């Protein structure tokens, strides 16, 4: 919980606060318990040997091996770079476009069918097109990730914009605010909770897409490594890649949550 949050009156024995275990460190504790629990279940299942999956120890060994050869680090950096560029670009475009769609009906009518259409198309189907138009460098990879992040965030932003409390917009207008000011100073802050949903889902999509993106002629990257491993049915390496992706995604998500907390501490949250 942020420091400002603690100014909110705790409510006794009931909704939410009554069940809070206290501070952020308690939360971290539960998270750790959850992870340990998950690993234990995984170990239990695999030790029975039924499903033919590698156990945690085996994956850990492989992870250490890959980390030792610096492959893991270079893969992680390569993927992280792509995801960060595509994701940030996607968000940066989605926010103004979402506003345009919420604000100007013409923009909505023109853009919405395409947003909705392209969201249903799997990234794999976009790749050949991206190659033809953008070559096989970093551009098409980042583009595919950009698209994934953009298409999810734009829906959330748009919904946020049309949900903004009308009285606040009116209050700004009677103070002399014109559209641009209302955008920046009323609509953006008021729709932050929605934008954050889009950003968080967009982040997940970006990572999930990096594997597809690295189908495009990547020379390194966690998704690339995973595909290599898939050729040889090298399950431990696949797991190491997946877990590395998951952990990086999780870390980025934590950062987003922290930003969200800072941006929406003004809210009277339940």
């Amino acid at each position, binding site marked *: 919980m942020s420091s400002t949050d603690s100014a909110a009156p705790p409510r006794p024995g009931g909704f939410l606060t009554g069940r809070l275990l206290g501070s952020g460190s308690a939360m971290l504790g539960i998270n750790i318990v959850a992870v340990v629990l998950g690993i234990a279940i995984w170990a239990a299942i695999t030790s029975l040997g039924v499903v033919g999956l590698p156990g945690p120890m085996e994956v850990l060994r492989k992870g250490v091996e890959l980390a030792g050869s610096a492959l893991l680090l270079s893969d992680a950096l390569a993927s992280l770079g792509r995801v960060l560029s595509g994701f940030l670009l996607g968000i940066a475009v989605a926010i103004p476009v979402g506003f345009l769609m919420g604000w100007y009906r013409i923009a909505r009518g023109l853009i919405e069918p395409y947003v909705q259409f392209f969201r249903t198309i799997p990234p794999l189907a976009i790749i050949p097109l991206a190659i033809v138009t953008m070559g096989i460098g970093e551009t098409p990879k980042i583009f595919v990730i950009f698209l994934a992040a953009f298409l999810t965030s734009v829906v959330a932003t748009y919904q946020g914009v049309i949900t903004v409390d009308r*009285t*606040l917009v009116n*209050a*700004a207008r*009677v*103070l002399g605010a014109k559209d641009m000011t209302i955008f920046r*100073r009323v609509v953006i802050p008021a729709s932050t909770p929605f934008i954050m949903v889009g950003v968080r889902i967009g982040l997940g999509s970006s990572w999930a897409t990096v594997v597809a993106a690295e189908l495009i002629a990547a020379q390194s990257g966690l998704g690339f490594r995973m595909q290599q491993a898939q050729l040889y049915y090298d399950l431990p390496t696949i797991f190491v890649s997946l877990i590395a992706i998951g952990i990086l995604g999780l870390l980025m998500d934590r950062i987003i949550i922290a930003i969200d907390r800072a941006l929406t501490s*003004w809210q*009277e949250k339940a």
Partner: protein
Amino acid sequence: MIPKISFQDVSRSFELAGQKSFLALDKLSLDIEDGEFVTVVGPSGCGKSTAMNIAAGLITPSSGSVLVDGAEVTGPGPERGVIFQQYALFPWLTVRQNVEFGLQITGMPRAKRREIADRFIQLVGLGDFANSLPKTLSGGMKQRCAIARAYAVNPKILLMDEPFGALDALTRVQLQDQLLQTWSQERRTVMFITHDVDEAVYLASRVIVMASRPGRLHRIIPVDLPYPRTEEMRLSPEFAALRNEVWRSVYHPAEH
């Protein structure tokens, strides 16, 4: 002379869910002169807020129009300051930032802005809470913040919807006197909605009495007390008589 605000046959109806449309305001015609202070009273739901929001340019009339300085209102503008019945503070801004909002739009330099904002924050007694967020304010404090925000942009016209409703009696009297003083010094035009008959008479040069079902103008009661108004006047028999007259015309409209 052209009236500052002129309601011309203004009607407004709303669709009620499933039902036929509901006439919230029926052919309101009213001229408010430049520099005049009118108060509006009437039973709950008689269209007071609707009329004010039309003048503010936030609601379009179903028929008729509102002229400000002779020009038809087509939208809001900073020359018409509004205090909303529901405060409408920006929850993500501190008290000071809320008050500075309108000033910032005019492009006023930071230091100047801050000085003006702080003056009005002091005026409404929120000096210690300049850096507080709205969610940490009491009801009356929120209302005072909204007042300071509207005052700060120094509008020629003030449209105030029950602005002192959540205030304790002393703060209320102080802000009434404060408002009257600024009004007379700087020649503002004020349209002020209140449920407090005492307040309506004390502030106004004319009390507009509205009636409901449909919401409409019922009577206009001129208040012939001289300005500046004083606490003694409140106790005068003329004041009491006016108060009674307003009261009766609000609540026994058939007889008046």
